[in-house]
């Protein structure tokens, strides 16, 4: 068993070396606030960048990050066409609260519900907030964990890098 594991692990790692270094989005289906299914692997934004950010109603730094992103979101959209998907990892104790909180705080992001952390596990998120940047080809080009005041500026620099490439 142990040897099999070792072999499997090594095979995976070696395969990984030859696999493309930039991974794509996993084949996980979540619901949006209207109850519609959204397949993450099929997210697209007409070749413009996509941001996926994990949060929860009970996560203080996440709320801070979302408020900060919301303040600049309109400008970012005008300049780069970026779209922000905000994935709530709230479980069933607080799913019903997500929409009232989102609307009450006036956020403009596309909200997805990851009720049993399927996407969180598939994208290896340990602790929210955790943010991914996806380029126009659906490849993850940048990720960041935690939020420090002003952190949205660094994300924007990364967005500008890939938004420029398009032109």
């Amino acid at each position, binding site marked *: 068993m142990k040897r099999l594991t070792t072999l499997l692990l090594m*095979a*995976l790692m070696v395969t990984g070396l030859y696999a493309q270094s930039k991974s794509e989005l996993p084949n996980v289906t979540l619901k949006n606030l209207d109850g519609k299914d959204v397949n993450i692997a099929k997210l697209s934004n007409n070749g413009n960048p996509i941001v996926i950010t994990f949060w929860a109603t009970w996560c203080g730094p996440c709320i801070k990050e979302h*408020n900060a992103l919301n303040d600049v979101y309109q400008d970012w959209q005008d300049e780069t066409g970026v779209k922000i998907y905000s994935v709530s990892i709230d479980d069933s104790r607080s799913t019903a*609260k997500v929409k009232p909180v989102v609307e009450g705080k006036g956020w403009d992001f596309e909200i997805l519900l990851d009720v*049993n952390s399927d996407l969180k596990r598939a994208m290896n998120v340990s602790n929210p907030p*955790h943010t991914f940047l996806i380029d126009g080809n659906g490849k993850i080009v940048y990720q*960041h964990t935690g939020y420090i005041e002003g*952190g949205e500026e660094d994300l924007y620099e990364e967005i500008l890098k890939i938004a420029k490439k398009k032109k």
Partner: protein
Amino acid sequence: MRKHIFALTALALAFSLRASAQSFLENSQVNGSFQTDAQYYMLDKGIDINDLKGKQLGINGFGKIGYTNGNFSAGMRFEAFLPEMNGFRSELNGVGLANFFASYNNDFIGVTVGDIYDQFGCGFVFRTYEEWSLGMDNALRGVRVVLRPTKGVTIKGLYGRQRFYWAPYLERDFSSDDYRGIVRGADAEWDLNQSIASMNESKFRMSIGGSFVSKKQYDQSLFYYIPENVGAAAGRVNLGYGNWAFSTEYAYKINDPSAINNFIYKEGRALMSSLSYSQKGFGAVLQVKRVDNMSFKSMYTGKQNDLDINFIPPINYTHTHSLPSMYTYSTQPNGEMAAQLQVNYTIPKGTALGGKYGTKLAFNMSQVNDIVRDSVQFGDQMALNTPGSLGYISKFFAISDHRFFRDINFEIDKKINKDWHLTAQYINLYYDIETIEGHAGAPAVKANIGFLDVTYKINKRQSLRLELQGLWENEVHKGYEVDESEKKDFQKRGDWAFALLEYSINPHWSFSIADKWNYGNPVEEYRDHYFTGTISYIHDATRIMLSAGRQSEGVVCVGGVCRTVPASSGVTLTVSTAF
């Protein structure tokens, strides 16, 4: 030597694959994550740590690797608790491959073998999940099939055995108290809006679902006849119209005597309903819940959160600041009546009170009481909850005077200008510490709590954050008489003050110092300071955190599932990364 041979085989395998199936490899992706939490414990007479009980160091760590290729994915998680940190269950002590799975998913069918995490409805009859910070993992090792025959219809079936720390899955060893049974379940959900074309864009939204779960366990009891098959069923409805949403779920479980319910043969019931209204700038949600004898484990002797098949969502506000989260409610599966109201409102930008950025307000009120229990025999001849009996009779809508918990809080969140941001919250709390934490005879916590959290942006890169918090108990504080014999139950009681100063340099560094002071404890020797200093470094998806100081006795809760953390003194290191 053997290892080298295997490594070479793997390499050769990979190369040959590369040559023969270039495209296959181009679609291959490997990802993973890793985390280690380590604590070094030190003696600290000031907070009564005079003996480390042989544990100088505790390390919890995991490494996870996942592989995907189109519709196929696989992964595994390796865990090491060498030994587990204080406050985690000693059964975790060990090292090994804790979790693995392989899965294939297309639009019609999904098959997963290995360790499965899933949830039916809100979790009343089935939920398997993993929560690292609690050391909680009730994964189901087995098979799951998901079918999507037409748009909007999802049917799931699964069976397997649950993870029980490191107990082996293959052998059943009753001599080691491992009486784990088998869990089988099915769930169906129908979303009318997605499946009926004319309803696709309708303002009216509706979905319904139902689940059935059963466990097959083995009766090893000398005293009771334990049912070997226990079934539970649940039904749910979600409705929406425009800005309104309503959802409800009801669950029923047949008699299931267990250590948790004191071996009574009563059926279990649970109901939860939510009604919400939301529009831009305003959101409100009202929730009610009733739980009666709904602990559901795949082993009838299971303790605490061991081998839970289901999940009973708590409905109350989740506090994250240090003092407000000191008394966190934990779900009482044997019975509770709960209600919650939450309102979020943003005073619009450009108004007198809203200012340039708007002002965010939030109000939350939640309360949990016990259910009413009456004797199963006329004239109250049979004591309530007698083992081996039907336990009690409970009227569905009756609410007991016994209050477990109440939290009324109000929060204001205001960005004042480009540089200043403040959050303030007031909380009025009632916490029945006797029921929730088992401190027999201790008076309930009745407290007012407040905090102020101010952030100042020094410049584009640097910022300062100050947190001031206070917790004032109405009855138990300096001067309250505590008997020598009950001193232990008052370890964290009385008034508290807390201050934290944090200096951050975006994007990498953050430094903070904090002091938590139990200045108003009725017992003089418990009036201690808990100083901590923390340094954290973040680089992309990597986080390194080092902190030193004292940790007060407390409860860590995620989703109403809690673990107690004993007081400690020492150094904590956390390293986590994802790729």
